[in-house]
């Protein structure tokens, strides 16, 4: 299974999500990047519930100070898994590792205290005060460490003698004796700490989770995301939007038109003119499904989503040309993967943008029809965008697009957004909208070229 880190570079918009997450700890960051899609309903339900708790917690204005305090402490929580593993395998820790464990425990205790008045179901921490006692013989509570003289009266004595040594040889001799005792103490400390390995690891994981949840909750507040419901029948989005594109449009004082859409366990065919936002729609559905299954809230007003085992896409922008594959070859391989996964009985979501668009239209249409047919048979949750007419499907939607606009309206590449209605309507006809030449004209294409195209189209 791929990790979040992998998907960041593959799924449009996921990098934007990642870069806008305010993670505080290296432990949290590492855990998120390594995390995989939730595919079990129980696990995802628990996660959504935990996120929901944290969401309410940070939304509450009276918690502002405590949230900022917790974040400051989390900032100090490093990923100490390597140091923990050293102890687990009975290796002797060096001073740096002992320091890290001590600092970790001090911060863990701090957070334990900070969250004690609240009742978080997922953030339960072990009390690690015993570990601190082992590593803080002077009981200072300060995150600092060395082999303290308090560990051994003999060491204390030798150190005193060394300070008073009269010759360099004597000092060196005493130093070597000290080193010997210090090594024994390190060994002994490592042995004592071995009893706490599981608790340390558990707390490290919970603190990483806590950091991730806070970051997700803050992200949800900032971008007005919604808690999704897990459903079985069909996925329903009301007011779905793309957080990244919305942010860019808003910075230009433009609006992102949110979309309502449903996804059934069979293909829904979507047609629409060029520039009517079909690809953005598919990418946004993909992003939302990934966010959902990585335990985020989703960019919509209202969402009921089917949990799937695989999210499979065929949405352009592929870099596979670099691997020597033509765009048609990449597409066929993607479609084939969808079919083989579906045939193996896996529950999948398939999002396919303009299948077979890069081959001759007659065969292309046949291929597109075959895809719809087989995905219908296999009951695949899917959306398929196309420009082809004559594709048979149980459900067809069309982007409204440029409708009811008088011919003398001055539409151009700058303002086309304002005239485009991105919402979807149900249609029954098999003919796809023919607005390509009009859009080309709006884009400011050469006049002779447009005239010739218009002539050609009239001859058909």
């Amino acid at each position, binding site marked *: 299974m791929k990790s979040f880190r992998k998907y960041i570079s593959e799924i449009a918009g996921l990098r934007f999500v990642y870069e806008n997450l305010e993670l505080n700890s*290296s432990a949290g960051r590492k855990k998120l990047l390594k995390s995989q899609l939730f595919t079990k309903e129980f696990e995802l339900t628990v996660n959504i519930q935990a996120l929901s708790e944290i969401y309410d917690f940070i939304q509450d204005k009276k918690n502002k100070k405590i949230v900022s305090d917790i974040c400051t402490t989390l900032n100090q929580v490093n990923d100490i898994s390597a140091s923990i593993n050293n102890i687990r395998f009975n290796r002797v820790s060096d001073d*740096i590792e002992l320091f890290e464990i001590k600092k970790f425990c001090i911060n863990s205790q701090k957070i334990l205290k900070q969250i004690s008045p609240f009742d978080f179901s997922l953030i339960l921490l072990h009390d690690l005060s015993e570990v601190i006692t082992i590593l803080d013989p002077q009981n200072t509570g300060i995150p*600092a460490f*060395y082999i303290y003289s308090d560990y051994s009266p003999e060491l204390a004595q030798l150190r005193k003698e*060394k300070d008073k040594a009269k010759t360099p040889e004597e000092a060196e001799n005493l130093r070597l004796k000290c080193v010997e005792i210090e090594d024994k103490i390190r060994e002994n400390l490592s042995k004592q700490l071995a009893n706490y390995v599981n608790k340390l690891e558990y707390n490290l994981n919970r603190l990483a989770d806590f950091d991730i949840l806070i970051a997700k909750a803050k992200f949800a507040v900032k971008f007005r995301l919604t808690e999704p419901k897990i459903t079985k029948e069909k996925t329903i989005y009301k007011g779905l939007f793309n957080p990244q594109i919305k942010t860019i449009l808003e910075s230009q004082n433009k609006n992102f038109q949110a979309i309502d859409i449903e996804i059934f366990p069979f293909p829904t065919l979507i047609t629409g003119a060029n520039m009517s936002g079909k690809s953005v729609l598919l990418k946004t559905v993909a992003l939302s499904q990934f966010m959902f299954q990585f335990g985020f809230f989703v960019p919509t007003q209202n969402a009921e989503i089917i949990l799937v085992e695989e999210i499979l896409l065929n949405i352009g922008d592929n870099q596979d040309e670099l691997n020597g594959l033509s765009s048609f070859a990449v597409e066929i391989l993607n479609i084939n993967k969808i079919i083989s996964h579906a045939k193996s009985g896996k529950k999948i979501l398939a999002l396919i943008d303009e299948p077979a668009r890069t081959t001759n239209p007659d065969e292309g249409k046949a291929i597109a029809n075959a895809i719809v047919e087989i995905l219908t048979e296999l009951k695949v949750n899917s959306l398929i965008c196309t420009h082809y007419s004559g594709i048979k499907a149980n459900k067809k939607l069309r982007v409204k697009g440029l409708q009811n606009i008088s011919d003398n309206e001055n539409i151009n590449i700058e303002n086309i957004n304002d005239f485009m209605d991105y919402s979807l309507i149900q249609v029954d006809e098999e003919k796809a909208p023919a607005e390509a030449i009009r859009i080309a004209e709006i884009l400011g294409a050469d006049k002779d070229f447009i005239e010739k195209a218009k002539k050609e189209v009239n001859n058909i």
Partner: protein
Amino acid sequence: MPFLKEILKYKSLSIIGTEKNTGKTECLNYIIQSLKNSNKTIAITSIGIDGESVDAVTETPKPEIEIYKNNIFLSSEKHFLQKQITAEILDVSEKQTSLGRLITARAMDTGKLIFSGPPDTKWLKEEIQNSQKYGVDLFLVDGALSRKSTASPSVTESMILTTGAALSANIPTLVKKTKFICDLIELPVFETNLTNELLQIKNGLWAIDSDNIIHDLDIKSTLLLDKAKDKLYSKGCVIFASGIITNNILEFMRIQKNIKETILIVKDFTKIFVSQEKYNSFTKAGGKIMVLLKPNLISICVNPWSPRGIVLDSQKLREELFKAINLPIYDIKALD
């Protein structure tokens, strides 16, 4: 202890050599030793690797850095674990240097140390700020050859320059070369209320017109000047170079008719990479170079010994330098 009082006026000090083996480490050791009973908290680090027992460049033995109880030091993981003194770890960085993470520690006894600090000035700056939480009164930075950027006044408040026979075996040449470096360090400050704004600028050449307005000259680097000669003086003769300056901009400006009105401003002396000859012809023609920030150059320390076995007359060297530079000049070894 002649210059300690002056040093303690500042929170941070970097020691920069005009050349390897000009006594930088000895100077650092001298300062640390002199302050050991002063109840001041001292932090010590170097930029990049330092503290090797044998000089990596000339393979000559090199004095190690001796630190005392309660001194704070910053060193990479590799050198920290090789230490022979007892030290309490105070912090471990998350970032890595090429020699592991950076460890901040407090010495619990006295001893010699090999250490390597943050690899770049940005990180060094963060550590200097960070050290405030341990109550550090003075942060000492052992600058490295060709890394004079550590002495940038945006990083450390004050500096000491070391020079000596390793730079030149001939006293007049040594004085001439050292004086040139001092001249650059002591360049006058361009007084303006735009200082902070100018310091933020990351690249390109800019002009400040007579109405005190900053204009982007749309010249990305002084190295690209050849393609944009007509733009340079389009907004007046006060030019700010946000990056480094090299010979070519001085040469170009020198032959322009408005050279006498030209003021070329840089962030600080560490941005200047010009030869003495080109600098002299530039200033002789009437051009001026000014800085936004100027370090507090406390003194110059000389090392009359060179690794090749040349020994200069310390007394004479100091006198000649003083005549030329007019700053306190010390020979650390001759102080005892």
